[in-house]
């Protein structure tokens, strides 16, 4: 159970950075490769993650279980598909009426990346909720979760920029990411164990 959730969080961290890095390649034909294009992308990702953390935390209050957890992954996968299919059309459309490449890239990355990244951002706090067993160890559990998911992000950054772009087309990497997210979602959804940790925590809290 624990291992499953940690593996999910790792993959989620990995794929967030994969998508973010490809963002630069997606936008550069229309808005250039300058620092402000990266600024736009990073801004949107940070904003989306912050919203995602908020929503994921909120969602975890209400009967947390691995089925819902799996659904978040599947939803994330589904939002990566229109991103992959529509990025050329969206970039072209934004380019048509935005002279300034700064605001062009900001608008385009908002349309393309905000929603998928919000959903991906929900996974980290939800993972914490599924892992935490006692209030005493909650900080350590959260810390370890951050460790694992950020390690995933480091891996995703390196793998994508060093190798994936050398081996595959951008869209294939994106579809691959969606596929992996969906597969994880299905695994988590059908994970046989009942939401043990959730129950343990509530009983523990009552006991204290």
């Amino acid at each position, binding site marked *: 159970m624990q291992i499953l959730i940690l593996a999910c969080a790792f993959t989620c961290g990995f794929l967030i950075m994969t998508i973010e890095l490809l963002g630069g*390649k997606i936008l*550069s*034909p*229309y*808005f*250039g*490769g*300058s*620092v402000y294009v990266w600024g736009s992308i990073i801004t949107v990702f940070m904003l989306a993650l912050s919203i995602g953390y908020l929503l994921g935390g909120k969602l975890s209050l209400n009967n947390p279980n691995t089925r819902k957890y799996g659904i978040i992954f599947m939803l994330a996968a589904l939002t990566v598909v229109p991103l992959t299919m529509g990025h050329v059309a969206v970039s072209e459309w934004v*380019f*048509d009426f935005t*002279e300034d*490449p700064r605001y062009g890239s900001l608008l385009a990355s908002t349309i393309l990346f905000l929603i998928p990244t919000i959903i991906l951002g929900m996974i980290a706090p939800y993972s914490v909720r599924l892992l935490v067993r006692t209030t005493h160890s909650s900080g350590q559990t959260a810390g370890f979760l951050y460790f694992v998911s950020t390690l995933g992000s480091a891996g995703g950054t390196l793998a994508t920029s*060093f190798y994936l*772009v*050398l081996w*595959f*087309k*951008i*869209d294939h990497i994106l579809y691959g990411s969606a596929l992996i997210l969906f597969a994880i979602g299905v695994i988590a959804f059908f994970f046989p164990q009942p939401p043990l940790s959730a129950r343990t925590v509530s009983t523990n809290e009552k006991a204290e």
Partner: protein
Amino acid sequence: MKSFIIKTILASLTASILLLAVTQKADAKIIEQERSLYQNVYMVEEYGMHCMRFRKKNKNDLSQSCIFLDAPEIFVFDYYKQAMGVTFFVEDPKEILIIGLGGGVLANTFGELYPEAHITSVEIDPVVAKMAKKYFSYDDSKPNFETHIRDGRVFVKRALKDKKRYDLILLDAFNSDYIPEHMMTKEYLEEVKELAKDDGIIMANTFSTSDLFHHESATYAEVFGPMYQINFKDKKTNRVIVVSNKELPGKRELLKKANQMKGVLQIYGVDTLALLDAISDEVNWDTEARVLTDQYSPANLLK
């Protein structure tokens, strides 16, 4: 183990001091430097030349643009000479577009060769454009010159939308350190092709070494079909590609044109016959190499 580490540290220290001494000894003087959004821009005076560089290291091939102080019209680099080969392909171009101004050597030269032409230069780095004006006598206050501080690809897309068309397009946006990957793809070349008039000529200053040579050649061939390459046999670092929307002229026509240009190009130190010799339509790349596209453009990893 410990002594090994100490030895290694000592050795590398000595090495770096030696290296420092060698660099110091060379006859190079930094006369101005400025950090831009994209790079450090250095203006260096050495061997009677002014050079623009993006790195401090003292290696000649790292210079982006150079001119001789006492004979500014004589070309310092072979690639400038190779670029003059494109004059054999055009007849009094009226609208010229240069993507990648650099020091402005090409802009200035084409301005002199074709005084009637309107020359539009695009440069992403405002500091580079500033140095071009200050040290390379690039003067865009002249009515037939204009400069745009913009990403080249973004400029091309916008110009297409604005229905601009050019007789001659010079692509010169790469430096040896870093390639803007979105400017070495099939889609970009298709946009450039569309931006050229029906009989327009496109010239690109590009690489002739590493795997990238094959990928890049395959990409040009995919978009334009047949192409000429201009490359002095003994010099390896740069080559110039010439392609067109229409059928390219044969060698005999080029010879005729070369004879016409002989006198003018002599001023710049260009040996017209050697240049004509350097022009080839031979397919010398791996035609199976993967074409670079917006979807697949790891140019810097292939370098």
